């Protein structure tokens, strides 16, 4: 896979699979027979789609970084290094648009949008705030109702409760749909999150909460804001089901969520999944330097070896499945074809994201009409009610 010297974290630039890390990767997906079975069931095509999803996320972030460098936008929030925690779970959902499952992405989960079906160009338009952006330039976080994506609320923790509300709605309506959101390690400290967790647990709502522990909240290391030992016990503490997964292993993320979804659809939700991962970039593009100072070189190096895309790619290449024919093979017997298959995916996704960026940028001049600033605040407004006028 191509690396981007100007944009990748230094650890990714000359990345090659580290044997020990790869062993760890394989062990993680074989540890639990339940999960191993779900992974084994993934067809070659679905495996490649997951790979495409990871790449799309990384390239989307790189497109944003490029825009920041070029001064097109002032700042961007990225998911570099954490892609698997978003992409694996989304691929385990029923993605049926308005009648499928629903996700509530936070800043590190932009990749959920494109994997739920939103075109990358629309996501980028969101940043540009053009008239044709999914939310008409009203906010910088984009959602898409028709794809099952809740428009994010930037107060961390607010979405946890709203997503629990989706669960309540789905349950009351008698559907088998479920709702999923990611809660950052830092966000777990917000009171609203606790209320949401407990409300979901006591009402057995079909909700998956993924605690995305990237070891940091803005400029605060995990141990500064969290005195307990990780998050794996969270489900039990709320009287619900829970399990950890390896947040840099997209297959483990997929399998854990697939399992959790079954539990939710059986009326036994919610499920708390605790993902361990690492933020390879800054909180946003403005504080990369501070972020690099927050953790040691060794920590970056160790997590850098675990690049979720590199690891998954290497696993696929040397795996037991011929990605072209879909046939089983001896491990390592199809490296040639498999590499070619991945390259083909990469070429396709690179072209997709590049043209999405070009397409979004081409509409840059189409800013929302001035009057639209005050439109759409309400669904209805009585004639008798006064309205601000003459502003524009």
């Amino acid at each position, binding site marked *: 896979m191509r690396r981007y010297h100007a944009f990748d974290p230094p650890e990714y630039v000359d990345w090659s699979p580290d044997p020990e890390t790869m062993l760890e990767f394989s062990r993680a997906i074989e540890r639990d027979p339940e999960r191993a079975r779900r992974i084994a069931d993934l067809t070659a095509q679905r495996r490649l789609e997951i790979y495409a999803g990871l790449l799309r996320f990384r390239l989307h972030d790189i497109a944003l970084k490029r825009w920041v460098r070029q001064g097109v936008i002032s700042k961007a929030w990225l998911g570099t290094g954490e892609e698997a925690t978003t992409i694996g779970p989304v691929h385990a959902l029923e993605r049926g648009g308005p009648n499928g499952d629903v996700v509530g992405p936070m800043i590190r989960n932009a990749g959920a949008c494109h994997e739920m079906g939103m075109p990358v160009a629309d996501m980028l338009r969101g940043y540009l705030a053009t008239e044709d952006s999914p939310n008409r330039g009203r*906010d*910088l976080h984009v959602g898409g109702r028709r794809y099952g994506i809740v428009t994010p609320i930037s107060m*961390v923790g607010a979405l946890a409760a709203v997503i629990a509300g989706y669960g309540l709605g789905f349950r009351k309506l008698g559907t088998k749909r479920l709702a999923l959101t990611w809660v950052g390690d830092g966000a777990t400290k917000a*009171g609203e999150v606790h209320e949401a967790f407990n409300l979901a647990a006591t009402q057995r709502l079909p909700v998956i909460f993924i605690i995305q522990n990237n070891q940091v909240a803005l*400029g605060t290391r995990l141990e*500064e*804001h969290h005195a307990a030992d990780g998050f794996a016990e969270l489900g039990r503490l709320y009287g619900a089901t829970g399990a950890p997964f390896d947040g840099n292993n997209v297959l483990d993320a997929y399998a854990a969520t697939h399992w959790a979804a079954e539990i939710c659809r059986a009326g036994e939700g919610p499920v708390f999944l605790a993902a361990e991962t690492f933020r390879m970039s800054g909180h946003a593009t403005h504080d990369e330097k501070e972020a690099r100072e927050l953790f040691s070189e060794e920590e970056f190096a160790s997590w850098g070896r675990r690049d979720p895309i590199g690891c998954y790619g290497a696993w696929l290449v040397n795996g037991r499945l011929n990605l072209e024919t879909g046939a089983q093979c001896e491990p390592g017997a199809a490296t040639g074809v498999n590499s070619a298959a991945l390259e083909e995916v990469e070429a396709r996704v690179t072209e997709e994201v590049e043209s999405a960026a070009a397409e979004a940028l081409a509409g840059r001049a189409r800013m929302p009409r*001035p009057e639209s*600033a005050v439109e759409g605040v309400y669904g209805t407004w009585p004639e008798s009610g006064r309205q601000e006028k003459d502003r524009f």
Partner: protein
Amino acid sequence: MALIAYREALNQALREEMRRDPDVFLMGEEVGAYQGAYKISQGLLEEFGEWRVRDVPIAELGFTGLGVGAAMVGLRPVIEFMTWSFALLAIDGIVNAAAKMRYMSGGQFKIPITFRGPSGAANQLAATHSQALEAWYAHVPGLKVVAPATARDAKGLLKTAIRDDDPVVFLEGEILYATKDEVPEDDEFLLPLGVAEVKRPGKDVTVVAHSRPLHTALRAAETLEREDGISVEVIDPRTLRPMDVDSILDSVRRTNRCVIVEEGWPVCGIGAQIVDDIQREAFDFLDAPIARVTGADAPQPYARNLEQLAFPQAEYVVRAVRQVCYRG
């Protein structure tokens, strides 16, 4: 005097007050090791150590309560909200715990706490991060509300707020952090709460504005002077509760016309209160209905062009002044 930025002025105020009184401490998200999300607390952790510059988790309601408790023990907490929009999660602690404790306890407890942080629209931070909610706090008995527009006022008022024995809501203009002003270096430079200042003397119209809109009003005043020969008096209440109504009335009695500018939403805004004060006490002095210029009656949009339109622009102020002068 030294020409320093608003950000630096706040930093000086905190540093001086922390040096002066060991009971003063700062608590909030990212105030320590990260030196503040907006770098207001730069260098304070190093000088005062982690018990006086406390980093806390993302728990606005919780650390507000912690601050109230610490104030009841006798300390003087300064609570930083990363932005005032995040204080929405702490509003119960501010309104129910901080504002009411003195009263509810029959005066047994004083709550010398300062809540501070950036407020208002900055650059494209959109609906949930750009709110100017001073009217909400000014509504609450038990809170004092301060919103300085200049580095000098920021320093003098923050120092006073910290020494005050009541809860003070101190709203800094996020967009003003880099603006510079001559600021006294004196450790005892204190500006009293509840005292307005005439920022530009004039005789034809009074424009009342606080925080960022003060600068908008001053720009508008220049345009009006130049293009219309209208002499605008610009007055900054600086403290919104208690409000120095007398100074505003005094100005209006001289100019007989008034425009009030604020970044917040129009309905039940700060300006609405000022209009009420003026019409009750200076009705006979008015030569025209009072005009208000406010933020648009909508959530703050993200698109740059909409964002610009949504908060008070100098041209809106110019238009309003011409209107109350029956010109143009």
